């Protein structure tokens, strides 16, 4: 029997798209000094957001997944960023960085800070080659325009946004003509599907969660990655043991404790996210893990305290708030979010 020329990997069932700065990495570049410090940091000096690396590892462990990282960091940082991801045990399939030197040399100064003209075409082009049935979960932060761009991407490929609205968005975001053409061309080539299940926004700047209500229930602002893991458990992307491992990493590396975790849990319940059903299996997983020899979950002992903390947080609410209603996004009314943060701040102050 002849062997095939090559064995292609199985097509991904799920695609996870991550931003890097302020989503995966704890980065500060709001001032020039911070920018320089960030650029000069070694891989070992860079800090991941607590729980982010564990969450990615657990999502990857499910198999048939694809990890695509799209970052606004310059291409010159590729080596150090790759080294950091390897240090954290994160395996990726795509790592796209921004060629800002090219933008600079071509005098495209708006593109240096612009997010829409950079991320949207990369997302669409990446989707062209993905299986139509592959689900997507996206991770961004509240520092720039991630909620806007990810939502627009999801609605574009689902056919919920037409070309006229897209044109107005690109106009408002001051996207350069060649990038506009690239976006429209990629959009036309993407098979129509509705694969984006969740968009997690890491609240690096602690933007009030209500701000993101405009993007509907698909966008879930999270204070930490334990919250994201809980939602992904409810959505069937993780099992309870994997969520427990994310929590443990947060306890061990960032000083999280039973209070912060149970508060995080209650915060999601109060926002109407359907995670109450996962509390019991999660606690069972913790119990099982605690009984195992040399279990890493020792950090959580004693178990009755864990159970009490979580169940009391739910009981304290008296009733369950209704889940947030899905709503169509009026992109023209949130155009301001598409502009770079500096432009928005200037506009508000004027």
């Amino acid at each position, binding site marked *: 029997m002849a062997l095939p020329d090559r064995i292609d990997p199985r097509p991904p069932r799920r695609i996870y798209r991550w931003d890097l700065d302020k989503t995966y990495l704890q980065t500060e570049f709001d001032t020039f000094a911070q920018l320089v410090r960030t650029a000069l940091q070694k891989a070992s000096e860079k800090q991941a957001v607590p729980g982010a690396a564990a969450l990615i590892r657990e999502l990857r462990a499910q198999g048939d997944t694809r990890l695509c990282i799209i970052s606004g960091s310059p291409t010159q940082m590729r080596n150090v960023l790759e080294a950091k991801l390897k240090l954290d045990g994160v395996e990726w399939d795509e790592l796209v960085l921004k060629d800002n030197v090219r933008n600079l040399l071509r005098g495209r100064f708006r593109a240096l800070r612009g997010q829409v003209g950079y991320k949207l075409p990369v997302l669409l082009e990446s989707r062209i080659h993905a299986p139509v049935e592959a689900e997507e979960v996206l991770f961004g932060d509240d520092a720039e325009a991630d909620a806007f761009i990810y939502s627009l991407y999801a609605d574009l490929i689902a056919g919920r946004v037409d070309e006229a609205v897209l044109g107005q968005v690109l106009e408002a975001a001051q996207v350069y003509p060649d990038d506009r053409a690239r976006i429209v061309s990629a959009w036309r080539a993407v098979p129509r599907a509705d694969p984006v299940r969740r968009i997690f926004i890491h*609240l690096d700047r*602690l*933007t*009030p*969660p*209500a701000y993101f*209500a405009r993007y509907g229930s698909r966008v879930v602002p999270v*204070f*930490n990655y334990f*919250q994201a893991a809980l939602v992904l458990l409810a959505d069937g992307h993780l099992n309870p043991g994997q969520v427990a491992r994310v929590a443990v990493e947060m306890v061990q590396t960032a*000083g*999280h*404790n039973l*209070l*912060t975790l*149970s*508060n*995080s849990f*209650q*915060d999601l319940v*109060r*926002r109407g996210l359907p995670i109450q059903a996962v509390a019991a299996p999660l606690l069972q997983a913790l119990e099982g893990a605690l009984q195992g020899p040399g279990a890493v979950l020792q950090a959580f002992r004693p178990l009755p305290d864990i159970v009490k903390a979580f169940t*009391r*947080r739910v009981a*304290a*609410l*008296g*009733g369950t*708030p209704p889940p947030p209603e899905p709503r169509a996004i009026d992109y023209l009314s949130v155009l301001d979010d598409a502009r770079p943060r500096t432009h928005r701040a200037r506009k508000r102050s004027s």
Partner: protein
Amino acid sequence: MRRSRPMPPRATTIAFDVMGSDHGPAEVVRGAAALSLEAPHIHALLVGDGHQIDQILAETRHSGERISVYHAPDFVGMHEKPSEALGRTPNASIVVATRLVADGEADAVVTAGNTGAGVLACARTFQLIPGVRRAALASVYPTRTWHGAKQDPFSLILDVGATVDATADDLVVFAVMGSAYARIISKNPHPSVALLSNGTEATKGPPRVVEAHARLAQHPGVRFVGNVEGVDIPKGTADVICCDGFVGNVCLKMLEGVAETVVELANYAYHSALRWKIGLAMLSNGLKQLKDVTDWQQYGGAPVLGFDRLFIKAHGRSKARAIANAGKVAAKAVTSDLAHAIREGLSLAGS
């Protein structure tokens, strides 16, 4: 040589009675939200109408990791009679908040609501520290001298209403409790303590004050400086001033009334003559500094002392900043184990 890092402060949970303040739930929730951003070791447990709290919280910058909510829709209004209101609403937010503290779910209570209801809820839920017969409601008052390492421009007056008919024993206990509080909160290692009377001589005042004077003069755990008169309160002659609740309440209300009258007179003068207007305008910078220094909002609240758990009463008109500061005061008293400091003080000289 390896330098050891300072230990992070112990995590404390402060239960905030969200309902019942003059401004409704918004300012209390915002204050707790601000606290969740400023002080990572303090967790806020917001007790009140869950729906209202969630709505305000969702639109306020906060850390969801350091805030939780306990639903208690009933509350005691500012002008309700405490005993009747608590009988009618046994699950009022202030009662639930004190119960959560008694059950160990939180370490202290902060409220900007009905003072009487708060004190009554404490009396029904908390235990008095052994040696304490009656609790004392303390208050801070701006003075012209600064107190302690923190240079607080306030002195502590107790009792201002919890125990109307204090005995000599009670006054001695108040002195010990006030002294412990000033040591911890104002970072004043040896606070001066005085009795409020109608003269500075040891023999002045009613028998209970005279007796308390004699005992405090011998007390090894209190730096007793003798009697002070009403005029000494704004002068800041002592760091802690003790009196019974009746006298304290009358004094405090009078001092507040005088302050309000001065402001009204200045207002009147400002509008009545141009030269007054110019004069006050020239003084405005200094007046603003004076206002900043003596701004009660920076102090947050005052404690009810004598219970095994801490209760901080913030002003009914407290805005978010005052609420956040009240939370900080509560957390500081908890981490410094104020109850233990009071117990120690009471054990000295068998007071």
